[in-house]
């Protein structure tokens, strides 16, 4: 917060009033949204809800297959995006500087990738993974599409962490004759550990919130997927379907939304906790 001298002139008062008005409006909206979801969602929420299959097109029953599909999507997405992202971040942070054209090309491409509208991403996923590579509507197609979407965020986060490691550590490693391989894998990456974890969690949050890109890649089916080549419906797609295509699906949708929001809150909380740990470490 920036502390400024107060002055009771008219303009200041007007600004004060209008900004408080906005702030309280937003808080009011947030409270309404939350209370609404909790109030209506808690009705159906139970252990049973979490572990049983949906029935009657989702109006009754639970969301077990959706949870499993979402989990599978996340696992595959992260297993591809995290290693690839770490590799790219290492390349950008340790092997390039501002002037190299390849580095500039990669940075620009990542910025563009990060802004591709999710439905366009879904179209790409459909054309490439579902049709061209013949994976069909499957968790695999969905996860690969998600991986393309979260990569830019993971790379940016890890690259920042690596760049924040003071140069003295690299000089020191060099002075002891350590090869770049050892320096990166046994010294720098362990130091960047918390940053990598943070990037991971951010990626998970981003992937879980994604819906449009999954519609035409992972599919719509409500059964429990047996393999990654099966189609599966993620939690967010389920909420969409219940509210748009299933009359009377609102109660289930509320409960599903509640579950999704709770999961995201947990992710948000762990992000903060990790960021705090990083700050403590760098202050030591």
């Amino acid at each position: 917060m920036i502390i400024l001298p107060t002055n009771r002139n008219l303009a200041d008062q007007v600004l004060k009033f209008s900004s408080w008005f906005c702030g309280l409006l937003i808080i009011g909206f947030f409270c309404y949204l939350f209370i609404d979801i909790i109030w209506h969602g808690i009705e159906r929420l139970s252990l049973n809800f979490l572990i049983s299959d949906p029935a009657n097109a989702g109006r009754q029953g639970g969301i077990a297959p959706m949870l499993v599909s979402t989990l599978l999507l996340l696992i595959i997405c992260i297993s591809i995006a995290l290693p690839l992202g770490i590799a790219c971040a290492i390349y950008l942070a340790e092997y390039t500087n501002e002037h190299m054209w390849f580095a500039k090309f990669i940075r620009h491409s990542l910025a563009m990738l990060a802004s591709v509208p999710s439905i366009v991403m879904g179209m790409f996923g459909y054309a490439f993974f579902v049709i061209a590579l013949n994976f069909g509507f499957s968790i695999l197609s969905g996860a690969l599409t998600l991986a393309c979407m979260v990569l830019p965020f993971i790379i940016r986060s890890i690259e920042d962490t690596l760049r924040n490691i003071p140069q003295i550590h690299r000089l020191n490693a060099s002075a002891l004759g350590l090869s770049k391989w050892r320096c990166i894998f046994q010294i720098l990456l362990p130091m960047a550990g918390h940053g990598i974890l943070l990037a991971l969690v951010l990626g998970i949050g981003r992937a879980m919130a994604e819906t449009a890109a999954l519609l035409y890649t992972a599919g719509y089916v409500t059964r429990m997927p047996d393999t990654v080549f099966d189609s599966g419906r993620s939690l967010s797609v389920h909420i969409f379907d219940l509210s748009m295509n299933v009359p009377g699906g609102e109660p289930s949708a509320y409960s599903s939304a509640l579950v999704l929001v709770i999961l995201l809150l947990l992710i948000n909380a762990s992000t903060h906790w990790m960021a705090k740990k990083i700050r403590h470490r760098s202050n030591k």
Partner: protein
Amino acid sequence: MSRDKALHYSLKFLAGLSVSSLLFIIFYLVSESSIILQEVSPTHFLFDNNWHPTEGEFLILPIVLGSVFIAFGAMVLSIPLGILSAILCQFYAPVWFSKPYERIIEILSGIPSVVFGFWGVIIIVPLLAQIEAPGTSMLAGILVLTFIIMPPIVLIANNAFINIDKIQLQNAMALGMSRFSIIRYIIFPNAKRGLLTGMILQSGRAIGETLAVLMVCGNVVQFTGNIFDPIRTLTSNIALEMAYAMDLHRSALFLSGLILMIVVLVLILLSEKLETSTKSS
């Protein structure tokens, strides 16, 4: 050391792999759109009677306008709301308020758009239906979209205010300027660059938003100035019709995807140009 050399080249390769998806995206968008561009002249997109792709009518203009109006409306609402919230956080609210407030905004910006869309369907649409039927309308889309893009705008504005030139600020305070004058004459001009680039990026996000607008806009293809009328956006158009589109129809959808992509890319280039130009000044 040959191990170091191998490492260098593999990392370089993996970095290239990471961005290869972009190349594929552009490739597919262009190649699939080219089908319709070869068969149908562009005048169809502007002057046909309606959007009935299965019958050879490709009037896409009202759909484009739908996207533009909704994004514009949402920006008009969220920018003042967002900036005022940030001003509140930074300059007027005590710490016990602003810290939790920031957390709330962060949580809001992480909530998936499908939840906002769902909420819009349950609450906003019936509310609007009482004012004027049918409820699913441009206004519903604008409101829901505002909820979605306003939290990131608050965060961007917060950031912009924190990162201003502290020395100018100290000088102003030493000269005894009042709070309002400082905000207006020192902080705002300084933060302008950060604010502008953030706004431009968020407008790109507003145009690209799919689910929420799909759920509350009504999806009727029509020209209208009445905000209570249902309309369709480019994004929801794609989402609705991809399932059963074939041949030319599908190609038309890919074309609209290409247009979306180009618009967003232009916005990004604009914001990057802005960042680098004012950086050097």
